[in-house]
């Protein structure tokens, strides 16, 4: 990587700088486990939250940790999760209690809401005789 040019053609530079998500977007945190310096806590990987705000653009710490320049800068988001969704299976959470986490764009993917989780949907279809469960 160190030999690669640290610039992008203008079009890509602009694309990289443009935040992919906006306030209120539903996003899912990637559930990958890459090696190296990572600033995405384990406990939110794979979880779904809502973009609370775009916090700005920052050099990528996953690159900075290895003395690379971390460019182009990445959009940094604050994503809000319901505690109940994070610690699923644990009763007693107030639905309004939340957790905000700062996440870089490369860790987020759009979440398309199909009106509930797939398992529930599959069961419903089965009950309706849709036969799509298999």
């Amino acid at each position: 990587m160190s030999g690669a040019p640290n610039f992008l053609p203008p079009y890509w530079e602009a694309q990289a700088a443009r935040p992919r998500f906006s306030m209120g977007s539903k996003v899912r945190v990637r559930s990958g486990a890459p090696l190296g310096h990572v600033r995405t806590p384990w406990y939110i990987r794979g979880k779904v939250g809502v973009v609370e705000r775009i916090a700005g653009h920052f050099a990528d710490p996953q690159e900075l940790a290895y003395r690379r320049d971390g460019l182009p800068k990445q959009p940094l988001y604050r994503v809000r999760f319901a505690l109940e969704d994070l610690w699923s299976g644990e009763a007693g959470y107030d639905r309004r209690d939340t957790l905000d986490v700062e996440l870089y764009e490369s860790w987020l993917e759009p979440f398309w809401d199909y009106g509930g989780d797939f398992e529930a949907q599959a069961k419903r279809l089965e009950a309706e005789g849709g036969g799509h469960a298999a």
Partner: protein
Amino acid sequence: MPHDGHDHGPLSPSGHPYRPDQDAPLTHSQILEIAVRELLIEKGVATAEEIQAQIERMDARSPALGARVVARAWSDPEFKALLLADGSEACRQFGVEVEAMKLLVVENTDEVHNLIVCTLCSCYPRNLLGLPPDWYKQRAYRTRAVREPRTVLAEFGVALAPEVSVRVHDSTADMRYLVLPRRPDGTEGWTEERLAALVTRDSMIGVGVARTLEAAG
């Protein structure tokens, strides 16, 4: 010294046993710090005086600075609006540099209680609050604050009404967080200096609330 044919053993001249030294062997990080510091001096990168001066600069920062910012926000609605919209800029205007990090100020109200944690390490607004307390860096706080914040708050003596919702902020990247605590009742017309005395470190992390008038005396 033995005399009269008997031995006082490990007793001090006052007649009490000597307390054992509490020196433990240096940890890996302590050895590393000494080695790097000595190398920096040896190679002429920094002088011992410069390193000492930097330590003193860090030690000089204390929660009193954050308390002054909070007291200003309680007294000046315009400053408060700016502080909540752009914490770094508000602090700059107040005369405190927050450096490269962006300061995000979150307000505690009758409906919302904010709590700050850094689960990955110990990110903390040092320029405003000084060095973080030991418990802030410990695993128990870092793991529990995001999982059972209400229980953690209760242990810190903060009893939240059930209608108050909790907002935990995990400081994982380039933001630094300061909680703007709720202004205690009965402090109308107070000077900023008097108000600042009510603002505790813990109230700015969110594990406490500002001192009440009774507590302040």
